[in-house]
């Protein structure tokens, strides 16, 4: 079991060492066709871009906001491992998130036409967030006696899962000599969603009497989830496939971006991504546990001491279960609901040290659990050859300061291959990383001829 846990954790670390999807490296790998996903105003160097289905843009990420494997486990002198709960508890915050993200481009293409760049893509996105409160671990490991006089808060505990397709229509254009603007309209077709809209859950232990008070409330929404969770459901599994294109769960989003050539050396850029919502209406089911407050201060002992009948403990248990059953609306209700696409914002600047080498900084922000989470990336970007781009960046994000990102884009003839990660340290030391990211793909990219190539061709003709 332990080995399984290790393997699982390591596998997750490696397989999904693939980007908690902040795309810091991608933002800095400007000039590649894929950078347009970070800023729709980024016009690639290539004239035509066509993705290779199944091998094109794949963006994977995993992150755990609270702790890494090394925070959880300590190696002892005899090389055996032990759980390090002290370290674990020091790392846990009130609410922590374990996230898995995946973007997969089904098909895409782009081409330049005069001063404009048109692009289209079909992107499948899957996001999974497990929200777990730190007090939940403390309760489990230390018991409620650690919370005497305090409320052990499990507020926010829940799961968010969202899978949808976006059909993206992008356009970028040069405005004058210094501006590039771009935008992308995203038409979404939701596949499945599970949202923990609200959870309030707390356990208060009276410091004197140890009386327990549980308070809480919960609201969750789901769409097309019964296929996974209810074996008795009549839902047709193929509905998930159809949902990828039938727009039963409609969504509209917008990506906006721009760049500004401030002078010969400095380029400013900014983008706002995923400005939009998806309306979930297909096979929806919403559940609600109304706000409740239940206290237990022990059984009534008067029955034992005074009444010959005594106290019927089993009856008390039945009453308690009945109370909980009444709190929880098992059947749920069918109602549509709206979720966001997960907006992100980038503001960056690059300074060109040489024509083939620049350094830059990017400020990032995203909406996570209804809060803006900032990040800062410092990058060095090199165009080593016409066929080779490279970027190395360092990122501070969400309290994590050990994120070294790397990206490479290689082109051989019309074939372009790229690979990047926002945190390559996760590959070096996967057990010490709290997040990992990998973005890779293979595409057909046909570049415009350089002036040198054009001159060479002309000489041959003459």
């Amino acid at each position, binding site marked *: 079991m332990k080995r399984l846990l290790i393997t699982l954790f390591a596998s997750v670390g490696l397989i999904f060492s693939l980007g908690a999807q902040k795309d810091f490296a991608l933002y800095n790998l400007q000039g590649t066709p894929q950078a347009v996903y970070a800023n729709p105003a980024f016009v690639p160097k290539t004239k035509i871009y066509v993705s290779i289905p199944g091998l094109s843009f794949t963006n994977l990420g995993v992150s755990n906001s609270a702790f890494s494997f090394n925070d959880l486990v300590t190696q002892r002198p005899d090389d055996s491992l032990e759980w390090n709960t002290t370290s674990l508890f020091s790392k846990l915050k009130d609410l922590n998130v374990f996230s898995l993200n995946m973007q997969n481009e089904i098909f895409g293409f782009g081409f330049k036409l005069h001063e404009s760049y048109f692009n289209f893509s079909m992107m499948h996105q899957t996001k999974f967030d497990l929200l777990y409160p730190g007090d939940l671990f403390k309760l489990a490991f230390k018991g409620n006696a650690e919370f005497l006089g305090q409320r052990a808060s499990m507020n926010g505990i829940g799961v968010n899962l969202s899978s949808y397709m976006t059909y993206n229509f992008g356009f970028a254009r040069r405005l004058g000599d210094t501006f590039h603007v771009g935008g992308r309209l995203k038409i979404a077709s939701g596949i499945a969603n599970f949202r923990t809209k609200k959870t309030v859950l707390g356990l208060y232990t009276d410091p004197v*009497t140890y009386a327990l008070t549980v308070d809480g409330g919960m609201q969750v929404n789901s769409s097309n989830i019964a296929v996974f969770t209810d074996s008795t459901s009549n839902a047709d599994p193929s509905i998930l496939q159809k949902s990828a294109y039938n727009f039963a769960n409609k969504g509209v989003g917008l990506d906006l971006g721009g760049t500004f050539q401030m002078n010969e050396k400095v380029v400013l850029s900014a983008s706002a991504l995923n400005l939009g919502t998806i309306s979930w209406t297909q096979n929806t089911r919403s559940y609600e546990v109304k706000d409740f407050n239940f206290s237990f201060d022990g059984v009534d002992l008067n029955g034992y001491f005074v009444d010959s009948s005594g106290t019927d403990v089993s009856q008390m248990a039945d009453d308690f279960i009945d109370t909980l059953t009444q709190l929880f609306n098992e059947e749920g209700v069918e109602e549509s609901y709206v979720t966001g696409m997960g907006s992100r914002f980038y503001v960056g600047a690059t300074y060109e040290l040489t024509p083939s080498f620049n350094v830059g900084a990017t400020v990032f922000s995203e909406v996570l659990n209804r809060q803006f989470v900032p990040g800062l990336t410092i990058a060095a970007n090199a165009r080593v050859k016409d066929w080779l781009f490279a970027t190395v960046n360092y990122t501070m994000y969400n309290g994590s300061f050990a994120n070294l990102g790397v990206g490479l884009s290689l082109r051989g003839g019309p074939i372009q291959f790229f690979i990047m990660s926002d945190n390559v340290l996760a590959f*070096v030391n996967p057990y010490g990383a709290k997040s990992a990211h990998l973005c890779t793909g293979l595409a057909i990219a046909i570049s415009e001829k350089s002036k040198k190539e054009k001159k060479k061709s002309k000489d041959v003709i003459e």
Partner: protein
Amino acid sequence: MRRLTATGTKITLVLALLTMVACKKFEDAHFAKTAWNPNLAIPIGHAKFGVYDVLAQIDSNDLIIIDPQTGEIALVYNSEIASFSSTSIVDFGTVSETIEVSLADLNIPASGSFNGSGNTFRTEPITVNMPNGVELDSVFFKAGTMNLHLESELRHDLDVTMTFTDMKKGGPPITRTFSKQFNGTVPQTEDIAVDLADVHADFTRGGITVNETQVDVVVKVTGTGEPINGDEKLSMTMSIADAEYHYVKGYFGQQTVGQSIDSVLLRVFQNAADGTFELRNPYVNFFIENSFGFPIQINLGNLKTINVNTGVENSLLNYPTTIDVNYPTQLGQVANTTFQLNSDNTDNLSSIISPTPKYFHYEVGATSNPANDKGIDNFIEDDSRFVLTAEVDMPLDGLAYGFSISDTLDFSFDQETDLIDNVTFRIIVDNGFPVRVGTQLMVLDENMNKLFDVFLNPEDIVEPAKVDVNGKVSQRVQKITDIPLSREQIDKLSKAKKVVVYGEASTTDFQNGTMVKFYDYYDIGIKLAMQVQGSSQF
């Protein structure tokens, strides 16, 4: 600058390549056991006890509110200490009278063949033999039978009429006639039974005597030609059997009508081993319910309290020894008498309660017509009752200390405890009584050997509530007592078969003589909880 940027480019490239390929392989490893010791705080139960739960658990009648305005309460223990019924005073005596009639009374001479007739009329007294000097004036019978018997050796026809002139059933006197036609055999006999139900009988013969009634007898003999020998006998016998009465009037004499030696159990001290209990104003009430229509005097004797544990007896001194009981003067009435022994008419009632006695002992006797005044008309009804109830009243106004009780309880514990490192029980007592309770618990094995004491020293788990100058509780007091059980003690619990509970109580500030009062709204809240430290590895 160009060189610098070229170098930077190379470094960037190398770093990118290096980091891409540098991936540490996670070595196979095994986990050591990790301790998991969650500490759980759990409420077990709660209870709230009022004065009735604490002081009158067995019988709520043990507690009464003696002042409805304030709710002041008293412990009350009573016992019916003497009673007697009507039959024990007047049991209808024996009645058997025979009336003989001679031939001379009938003016019939001896003859070889008698064809004439003869008759006679006589009034005869009937005496009732009553015991204990009881003098009957009248009786209203509820049941009974008067048996009349005729026996004659005369060989002639007979007509005998008996009229009980003072015995009437609603109207005329009771009359019965024997009519005998000689059938050739002697003696001639006949019996008549007279139902006495609802018969009123006067036993004064018109106010001239007692215990006597009378019968008029008319005898007529008609000859049948048979001889008259001259020595034939003719007699009438009457007797009364199974007599019960609605009421009896008369004078029932001076007799001891009841005696009793008994005691009142003072339940509050039932389990007390020791202690001092000083009450400001205890008293003993005697309640007498009397429907006997004659004077009765109660004689009190040997009043004392007894502590059967210590053998200590404390006699009550200088108390009134007699109680004159009220009596009804008309049929159907009930007369009640209340008599109280208190600190005003005794010397030491308060102090004999002090050593937590178990019983209040008494000896009583009851005498009818103590003045032997025959001028007082006595009566008894069939449902007349005399009930003497003694009630020891202890208004809870005083102080107590050293009031100790102990009990041995069966105990068994067969739960799995391997995953428990230690347990700490918590008792939270929110006390509204002006009483402190110290406790010790001793855990014993099946051979009554001590396994361990729960407390290192007896622990005050109940702190007394504070009182004002009137002895009334002015502030509740909460006491939290933690009882830690070590792993070793938990292991011993599996061998435990008995738990000895020892408690010692005292009232608030008794050392300074503070007297406290108890009211009906006092209560005590108890909450039980525990912390369990788990012991596990994963």
